[in-house]
């Protein structure tokens, strides 16, 4: 078994192993090894070689320049949350993600690579216009996150590629709203989630991103509906809200599963969208910093 666990000295070496042997990258292992675990005293049933990447400094750094934040694919959530330039909505998402022990080892790259529709951080990354950097031995490309994840466990990552970083644009947002509905208060998986952020220009919405998690095979975000919202004033949103909600509900397709029901997910998705459009867009609260970023209080 040990020969199938490769410990490269550099990213280049890791990419080579990926290309040559189809090795699966592993860092925190909080998803991969749970998924493939055997009973106590047995090894996980992985049928591909493993390339360990958690120690590669090229992949673990979180850095920022004026315009964007670069999160290494193997950066752990604790470190991402600690970076001063990390957007507040992502920090809040991480605060509600799993448990401290998991946040200390789980990585953003793993979350994207696993492509679970219920992955908490992924939903927020959609809302934040994240781009994913994919590298192979010979090339590197940046792709919007929605073009990387195509379904549960399905991605467009090439057989010779590794996720090397995630890029987030910085400095634009004025408001955000995040709500995860989990199975309990802490260390919980999502039944559904909504992440929204944006910016006002005077009294109009200059920009908005709305992402819905765990209610469809992939995170749902609609360029068309967001386009209709751009430039809208408070009155416009009040007029459009029913149509907007109907538009989103037509895009989601939740399932009945061991954690919740389709009916509940639809109902709460609708409620959260109503909350967003009716109360969380800060048209009437200009200058009121405390309402600029929020998570709906648990009552």
């Amino acid at each position, binding site marked *: 078994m040990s020969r199938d666990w490769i410990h490269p000295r550099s990213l280049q070496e890791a990419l080579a192993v990926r290309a040559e042997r189809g090795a699966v990258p592993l860092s925190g292992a909080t998803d991969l090894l749970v998924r493939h675990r*055997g009973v106590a005293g047995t090894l996980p049933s992985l049928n591909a070689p493993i390339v360990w990447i958690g120690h590669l400094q090229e992949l673990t750094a979180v850095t920022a320049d004026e315009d964007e934040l670069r999160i290494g694919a193997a950066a752990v959530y604790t470190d991402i949350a600690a970076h001063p330039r990390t957007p507040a909505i992502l920090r809040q998402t991480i605060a509600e993600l799993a448990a401290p022990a998991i946040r200390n080892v789980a990585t953003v790259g793993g979350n994207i690579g696993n492509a679970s529709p219920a992955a908490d951080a992924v939903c927020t990354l959609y809302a934040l216009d994240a781009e994913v950097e994919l590298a192979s031995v010979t090339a590197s490309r940046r792709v919007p996150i929605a073009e990387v994840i195509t379904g549960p466990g399905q991605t467009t990552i090439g057989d010779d590629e590794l996720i090397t970083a995630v890029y987030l644009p910085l400095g634009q947002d004025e408001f955000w709203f995040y709500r995860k509905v989990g199975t309990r208060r802490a260390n919980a998986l999502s039944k559904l989630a909504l992440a929204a952020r944006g910016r006002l220009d005077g009294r109009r919405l200059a920009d908005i991103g709305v992402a819905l998690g765990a209610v469809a095979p992939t995170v749902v975000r609609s360029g068309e509906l967001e386009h209709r919202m751009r430039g809208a004033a408070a009155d416009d949103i009040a007029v459009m809200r029913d149509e907007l909600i109907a538009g989103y509900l037509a895009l989601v397709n939740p399932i009945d599963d061991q954690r919740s029901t389709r009916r509940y997910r639809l109902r*709460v998705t609708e409620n959260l969208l109503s909350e967003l459009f009716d109360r969380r867009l800060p048209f009437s609260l200009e200058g009121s910093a405390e309402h600029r970023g929020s998570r709906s209080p648990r009552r």
Partner: protein
Amino acid sequence: MDNAISREVERVDARAKARGETPYLADRIFENRLYARVVRARVPRGTIVNRNTPSLPPEYHYITAADVPAGGKNCVRMIKDDWPVFAETEIRYYGEPIGLLVGPDRQGLAELLEQFEAAVEYRKREAAVNLEEGLRLKGGPIHGEDNLFADLHTSKGDPERTLAEAARIIEREFHTGHQEHVYIEPQALVGTREDGKVTIYISTQCPFYVRKAVATTLGVAAEDVVIVQTPTGGGFGGKEHYPDVLATAVAVALTKINRPIELILDRMEDLEFTSKRHPSRVRYRVGLDESDNIVALDVDMVLEAGAYESSSRVVLQRGMFSSNSVYEFPNVRVHGRAVATNNVPADAFRGFGAPQGLFAAEMLMSQVARELGVEDVELKQRYLLRQGSTTLTNGRIHEEVKLPEMLNHILNESGYRRKRSEYGAGNGRGIGISLFKHGSAFTGNGEPEIIKARVRIRKRADGRPELLVANVEIGQGVLTTFRKIVARVLDIPYTEVVYSNHNTAQVPDSGPTCASRSVAIVGYLLQQAAEKLKGRLQEPGEFEVEQVYEHPAHLHWDAETLTGDAYPAYSWGVNCVEVEVDPLTYEVTVTGVWTAYDIGRAIDEGVVRGQIVGGAIQALGYAGLEKLQNSEGRFLQHTMADYCIPTSLDFPSVRYTLFDNPYQYGPFGAKGAGEVVFDGIAPAFGAAVQQALDREVAHIPLTPEYLSELADGTDSAFHAQRPARTADAEPATTTP
């Protein structure tokens, strides 16, 4: 007697457990040990057509029913002998053991297990996987002609006539779900032979139950089997009988294999295939006279027992006897049934039927009050049992009942009346109250006729007293409380008392560790035995004193008609739970829990506090979070990620007050405390949610999914809290 004994001391096991130093079975290495895995059926119901048994590599063994020794019996003896150690042809539930694989390497065993399970061919039958399907005999009866493991009646007064003549009848129906114990340490044992005897080291609540079961399976005398309880990481009833199922299987293997065999369930295996709390359906007809007085109660209780009987008959009895909570009605009729289904057998779980009966009874009272337009506390107060009251089994309440002062205390402490009116109906906030009792010790004649507990205290040569009892520490604190009882009689430090022998060959059978009986019954025997030892600790050499259980003469029970004193004494409780329901997500936040208990007298307030807080949190999980959903005979939730028990963030701190009310036949006045602390939380939670939504609550768990459906009705004020539009937009595509 004063209550100085109640003062909290350091638990004798606390430091080692907090430091992770306590050696649980998985921490111990038995030389030359083999591992075992249970080979399980992969259909919920059917017959084995062909096992197609694959061949075994060297050093591996496959044990089946055919290996049960002549003179033995392929059954797990609990109360009945219906549960086979290994299924022969008939399969009654998904995961039922059909064999045991034993070998030197766990990886090898895992691979073999897959082969062996996949090879079996079955003729599948239609399965009945819930209570209603069991009652309907879906797929034909599983047990007998009618699927009923028990069909019991008890009554008092003249329920027929009073129901027939009632001015008004109110009817309600309540449901509760499965619950998994989630003890921290999974089921674990190592079987071996020592001095020629089958010897089982095991995580268990009841070493003598294991001994009885193993001896029956092997067809040997009980004395030829030795059971040693190892430090046990929680039980909650899940290690009352279930360890017998695994121990008998390993014992059969030991007749073929002369090496230690370790069987420790993996967490997921434990979650999916070990026993659960009985789901219930309780129907009531309440007869009222012209002045709206309750004159008669008609109760129809059904418990879902699963595939085999196990303890269901007795769980049902406790459920039935709890179905009028703490109220005295002149005429009562209770019909109870335990129905077979193709689910894992349900068995003991903290409360043992009482939580089901009490949830239904307390919700009923709150709903009758709603319908009559009175406050539920006012209605309940009219019917409270008092000293001298007649129970529904025509027994007596012998002790002073302190419920009125307990209730007043809770009403004041919680601000109940003010909040109740302030929150109104359907505004997303609510507060609920429950009153309840829990009988200490075995039901009916269990203590004098079945258990006949016996304890001994040995005066050791070094002058220290050593406790010889069968009761064991499962996290509840008995290592400390038993020591305190004896130390106080002998007027020595509790740390001087030795209590470390948990070997059935060396201790007398003082009965199982369950039923809120350890302190109440066995603790009292120890107090009596210690009295015999008093003044003799300085005597030279080693000697023992013994005490045997004597049933108090004022107690009477008729097991045929289920009439008389169902329990020697009761512990009493009042709980109050306050909630807020999120109008967007229907998630419930518990904002306050106030509790009051009469457990006679606390032997140690720290230990009791542990029971109260732990019991409340476990019960809030039962009431609001923990859901097991059956799909074609398997639970959908079989990981800790999907079967969610509460974390410390889920619920607030639990306030408690103890009402001292010494019980004549308990050690220093103590009664049971382990279960009453679970019993009343769910109905208080239910009543609070009921107010928050202005909706009648009919079942637990009260998940956000269920609440969203309740709130979707039209006439609830809670509805107005939601955004106006309703989600009728159903996407055209279907669920994958």
